[in-house]
Each structure stands twice: as C-alpha cells, then as structure tokens.
C-alpha cells in the first residue's frame, strides 16, 4: 500500500492506517532526529510531536509527499527543541556533567554480546576501514585526529568510515539471515 493510499484511508477514519504509517516511517524519522539532537529522550519527544502535528494537519498534506512532510515537521521540531535547550542552558547554572550510566543486567549482556559480534565482523573489513572505525567508535577520536594519525586527508578518513560502516552493515545482515 502506498503512502497516498494510507493517508487517504487515515483521513477517512481508518485507524489501522495510522499503525502502518508508524511502522513505515518512525525508524527513519527517529534516526534523523537522533542525528540532529544526539539525545535519545529528546528524539523521542520530538518524534511524538512530529507525528501529532503532521497528522493533525493531515488534511493539508499532499498525500504523495507524506514522507517529506514528516521530515519537514521533524526538522522543525528538532530545531525548536535545540533552541529551547540552548536558551535553558544559557539561563541556568552550568550543570554537573554526570557520566552516562552503563547498562546493567540483561541489557548489558545483550550489549556486550552485540559488541563482541561487531568486533568479529570488523576483522573481516579491509584494514584502512577497520582502523578508522576502531579509532572513531572504540577510541572516541575525532575525524580530524584520525586523519592526522593516519596521515591522510579528512575526506579519505570519512570515506573509509562510511564505506566501512556500509560493508559492516552488509556483513551483519548476512550473518542474521
């Protein structure tokens, strides 16, 4: 079923269409919001507001452009949250930065297991890509530092990172089929 059909069904009062719209678009919109806000909880708040505002205004949406409309609303919501956050930070006292609590219990086990499997898959990547990913993800280095360490231009480091991540994803999907 296309987005157009889904939106038309939703406008006619079909609540099941709403569920399909969530299924189809929430992940991409959420990742987009994470990319802008870099905070899981804020991204969730923005995601909720995005769907509410987009769907309340559904009568004015061109049904063929539902996805781009959702992204537009998400972008607006994310920037709004960012501005609020910035204003709040300017007004309030500098907060004591607490380290991100490490997960514990079953979640920690899952995460460790995932990390182990990713490390195994990482070994299958070409060395230049593996080096950049390790430096960035496991050592937390900035891209410019990595490029300087490896003695290559920034774009080369970025290209290795991007290609390496794509390759890793393919390996991951293949191992889970």
């Amino acid at each position, binding site marked *: 079923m296309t987005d157009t059909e889904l939106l038309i069904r939703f406008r006619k009062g079909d*609540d099941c269409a709403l569920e399909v719209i969530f299924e189809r678009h929430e992940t991409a919109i959420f990742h987009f919001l994470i990319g802008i806000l870099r905070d899981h909880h804020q991204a969730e708040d923005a995601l*909720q507001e995005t769907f509410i505002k987009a769907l309340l205004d559904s009568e004015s949406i061109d049904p063929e452009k539902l996805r781009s409309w959702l992204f537009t609303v998400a972008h607006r919501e994310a*920037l709004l949250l960012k501005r609020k956050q910035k204003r709040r930070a300017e007004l309030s006292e500098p907060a004591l930065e607490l380290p991100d609590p490490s997960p514990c219990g079953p979640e920690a086990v899952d995460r460790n297991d995932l990390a182990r499997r990713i490390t195994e898959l*990482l070994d299958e990547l070409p060395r230049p890509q593996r080096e950049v990913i390790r430096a960035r993800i496991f050592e937390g280095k900035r891209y410019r530092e990595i490029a300087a360490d490896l003695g290559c231009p920034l774009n080369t480091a970025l290209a290795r990172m991007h290609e390496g991540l794509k390759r890793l994803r393919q390996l991951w999907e293949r191992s889970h089929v």
Partner: protein
Amino acid sequence: MFEIPQPTQQREDLQYQALLYAAGELNPAAAETFEARLGSDADAQQALVQVVQLAGLVDGRSYIPDPAYRSAVRQVVLAERRSWHRRLATWLALSGACAAAIALIATGISAKQTLVGNAPSVSPHSEVAQSNSAPLVVTPAVPQIAESAPNPTPGLLAKQPDDAAAANDTEDTVGAANWSEFANPVWLHKYLLDQQRRQLRLLANDLNIEQLPPPPELLE
C-alpha cells in the same frame, strides 16, 4: 576554471558532511548551513539517517523509539478527530436550523405581500354563506393566521356557517384558520365533507325538503 562537481562526488560530500555533523565536528557555520539544508533536501536527510543507522549498529546502541509514543499520538489525534466531528455536526445542525428559520420568515413575508396585493380575500366560509357556487375558493389569507388565529383547532371546520360565534369572526380570520388547517389531510377531508353537507342543506331549503338524506361520503 569553475569545476562542476559530479553527482557521485556531491553525494559523497553530503555523506561526509552528514558524518561530521552527526559527530558534532562541523564548525558552527557549516553545521548551521547543513542543518538548514536538512529541512528541505531529501538527500541530506537520507544521508543523516544512514549515518545514524550505521553508527548505531557499530556502537551497539539500538536507536529504536519507545513504542509508548504511538499510543500518545493516537490518543491526541483521534481525540482531535472526534471533537472535529462533533464540531462539524453542531455546525451542520445550527446551519440547518438557521436555514429553516430564514425560509419560514421569507415565506411569511412573501405571503403577506401577496395578501396585501389581493385584498379583500374571500374565505371558504363566507363564500358558502353568500352563494352556492364555488365552495372552495382558496385565497392567500395565510399570513393572518399567526396574527389573528394562532392556534386553530380541527373543530373549527366542523362549525356550521350559521353558528353565532363564527358569524362574529371576520372573514379573514376564519379563512386564515381554515387555510392553516389544510396542511393536515384529515382536516382537509373533513372540511370538504362539511362543504358538501352545507350545499345539500341549502339545496334542501330551496326545494323545501325537511328531511335531509344521510351525510354523503366525499366524492372521490
């Protein structure tokens, strides 16, 4: 010479920018530009989504929203839709009532104007009292119903023309009362029967017949 970037190169540049932006490594001006671009450029949006997806896979974070948000969205959206339907129904009912009221007022005004133009009107009762011909001449004495006989009763039709009370009524009042009752088919039927009975009585008087035959059925 100015070099036009190739599509592939543009795409790569976009991906690198997305990588740097997501990592918070773009300088403020470039970050602002890229952020503005994210509002309308589908390629930039897709690049950022891809970067977050890939990074999430590697650093072991599951970037999946809590499904509870869905019920919150559903609650707000469906509640708003229900209240919109209620508002629509209310507005429709109000507009219907207004239209009906306007139509009634307009009918009343036009009938009154016709009455003024055609005066004096002739009522069925006065017609019968004066002659035997044309027992049911309907004239637009309607608007005076509301003014002179606002609550006519079906029994009025059963009254005889020689009734003392009816004689005191003005022609218009009686006519208006009768006219108002034509809306009810039962009353109209009774009225026509009554008219026939009166004509027969007048005929009997002319012929000097004392005993009237039983009341006739209305001729179909």
